[in-house]
């Protein structure tokens, strides 16, 4: 592969992708970030990465940054409206910069609870998804589909489920919930955990970059194994000292509203969300500081909570994610790219636990971390 340019390179997936390219000796890695502060997670890689500053929503600024790229990887995330705007801007900039290949990261969340086991990779997204992020990702996909055929370059859309493992914010939220003993299952945890280990996703992206032939299309990407939410929680619970037999289960039939869930619901309303982002810059420091502390959650001085929560406060997003009914098939991707996930679920958990140990989390003495 020649020059790979990564938009949103300082995020969770971007950092890992850049790191893997550098460690594997990829000669030309170009990382595009919006602000100087985003250089922090990439700075350790030194001159092996060429860093450029550009706003992904600014088409004119993107064109010179993308010129000379053999593949562009779009990992931009952020506020929902920004996802849609940046997708359009990147599409246009790739054409202007004569980029041969664009790899766009979408999300399996656009399929809601995956109602059918036969959902095709080209199936349309769930209409009017309640989650602004999912709605934005779906809208971006619709735009990509409309323009894909006429685009003067190849567009590949990868659709991972929950990206988990080392550095994953989602995994960290589960770890914290376990340590604070406020975890819960929905419907006894029988829903499907449509996840992909970070290194497997990175391998998928790189397979697209390296593929010499036609890569145009939409592809679901996932881990090999069929994992339930109970399986996933159990894999982390034991090492973190959480007794799975004490994990409460809530009904999957009807969302159990709470005051916190109501506040979060209101926050997600587009008008409130927009207002919040405008107000945020004008809030006094004291208020910003209080909000930050409130959002940071409890601090367990002992390392973990002593009492198990029996009536948990249920997060709406978690509740919906745990209600996924079927595993999304990644067979099309495997077939087209000759791909087999390099990391098994068991190995992914092992690497995640090693990372948690590095962060200073105390793992149960019975945890086995050897290969």
């Amino acid at each position, binding site marked *: 592969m020649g020059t790979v340019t990564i938009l949103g390179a300082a995020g969770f997936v971007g950092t890992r992708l850049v790191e893997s390219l550098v460690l*594997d*000796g990829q000669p030309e890695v170009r990382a595009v970030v919006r602000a100087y502060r985003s*250089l922090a997670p990439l700075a*350790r890689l030194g001159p092996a990465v060429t860093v450029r500053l550009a706003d992904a929503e600014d088409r004119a600024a993107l064109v010179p940054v993308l010129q000379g790229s053999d593949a562009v990887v779009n990992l931009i995330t952020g506020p929902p409206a920004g996802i849609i705007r940046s997708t359009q801007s990147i599409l246009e900039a790739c054409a202007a910069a004569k980029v041969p290949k664009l790899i766009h990261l979408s999300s399996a969340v656009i399929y809601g609870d995956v109602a059918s086991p036969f959902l095709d990779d080209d199936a349309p997204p769930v209409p009017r998804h309640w989650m602004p992020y999912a709605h934005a990702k779906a809208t971006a996909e619709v735009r990509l589909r409309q323009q894909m055929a006429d685009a003067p370059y190849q567009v590949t859309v990868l659709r991972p489920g929950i990206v988990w493992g080392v550095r994953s914010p989602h995994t960290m939220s589960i770890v914290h919930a376990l340590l604070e003993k406020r975890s819960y299952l929905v419907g006894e945890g029988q829903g499907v955990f449509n996840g992909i280990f970070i290194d497997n996703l990175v391998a998928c992206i790189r397979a697209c970059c390296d593929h010499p032939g036609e890569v145009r299309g939409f592809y679901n990407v996932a881990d090999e194994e069929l994992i339930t939410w109970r399986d996933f929680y159990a894999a982390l619970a034991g090492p973190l000292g959480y007794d799975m037999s004490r994990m409460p289960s809530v009904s999957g039939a009807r969302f159990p509203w709470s005051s916190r869930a109501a506040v979060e619901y209101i926050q997600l309303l587009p008008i409130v969300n927009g207002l919040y982002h405008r107000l945020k810059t004008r809030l006094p420091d004291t208020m910003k500081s209080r909000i930050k502390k409130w959002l940071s959650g409890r*601090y367990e*001085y002992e390392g973990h909570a002593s009492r198990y929560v029996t009536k948990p406060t249920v997060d709406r997003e978690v509740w919906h994610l745990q209600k996924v009914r079927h595993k999304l098939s990644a067979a099309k991707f495997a077939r087209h790219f000759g791909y087999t996930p390099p990391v098994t679920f068991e190995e992914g958990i092992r690497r995640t636990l*090693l990372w948690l140990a*590095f*962060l*200073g989390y105390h793992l149960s003495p019975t945890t086995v971390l050897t290969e």
Partner: protein
Amino acid sequence: LYRKPLKELERQGILKVTALVDRNAGNAGALHASFPRAAVHEELDRALATGQSDLALILSPAQLHAEQTILALRHDNHVLCEKPMAATESQCDEMIAVAQETGRVLAIGMIRRFFPAFARLRELVVHGELGQIGSFSYSEGRAFDWDVKSPAGFTRHPQGGSGLLFDIGPHALDYLIWLFGALEVASYADDSLAGGVEGNVVMELESSVCTGSVQLSWDFPLKNGLRVVGSDGEAVLRTDEFDRLAIRRAGSFSEVTIDRAYPADVCEPARRRLCPRLYTESIYCQLIQVARAIQLGEPPAVTGEEGRECVRVIESARRRAQPIEMPWLDGPRQEAYRALHWTNA
């Protein structure tokens, strides 16, 4: 962060901002709206040559601290130099020598020392309220989110002064030195490849009273805080809770809110006092302390000698550098990482 405190000090007539200096005129220009009477300069020597200033605030990237501080001192300015004091210990020596020679105040910005909980934990340690201190562990890590105006901190410089160790490092090390006295580095590891700057650091430290560990990160979320374990009790200071401290003497931890007020004017004795609970309030107290050092001859909160000690530990750490172990990478990538680490370049 300095804008609000300086405006407040101007309003009170304690000081007047006479010049804003930045090699990038746009940065200084952006501040000009807050200080319309101040002149804007791209070069420090030009600003100093006007003879309009008595105190220089050196808030530039660390690589410039020594040169700019010495220049300001030579122009008869007192100096408040932000942490880290300089990129090397020898630069610190030179800065201290020039301050002594010119008879000017040289203060180092370490705003966390003013936070009530930080000061209270020091009392607990120094006064033996936790008994004999046995160990400590310090963790501070999060996604870097300061709105920096330059990439200087993320670029390796031949003399040092950039990277995580010069960013969060001085906060952690200065505070630990303040608590436990001089520190020696037992081990140090980071994750920087050749030509890069570290984003993760782990180190083991020793003082004459205890041993401990420090872990810092620009990209991993750590459990931010300092845990000090003594023979009679244990304390946990959260680095994001400036006025709260958790103490356990027996049983479980209990959180206490700490009030600690500092002079808020330059009267002797102070007529007003302020308990800082925000960065801007702490900076205000620090600036007042410097003004009192100049006008009343009080010692600055952090002297050049203390600032130098912190830089000495950083230099000592880098001399012992090893690659951080990253067992979560697969075998070939672990090998590649070790081979590309700056210590093997």
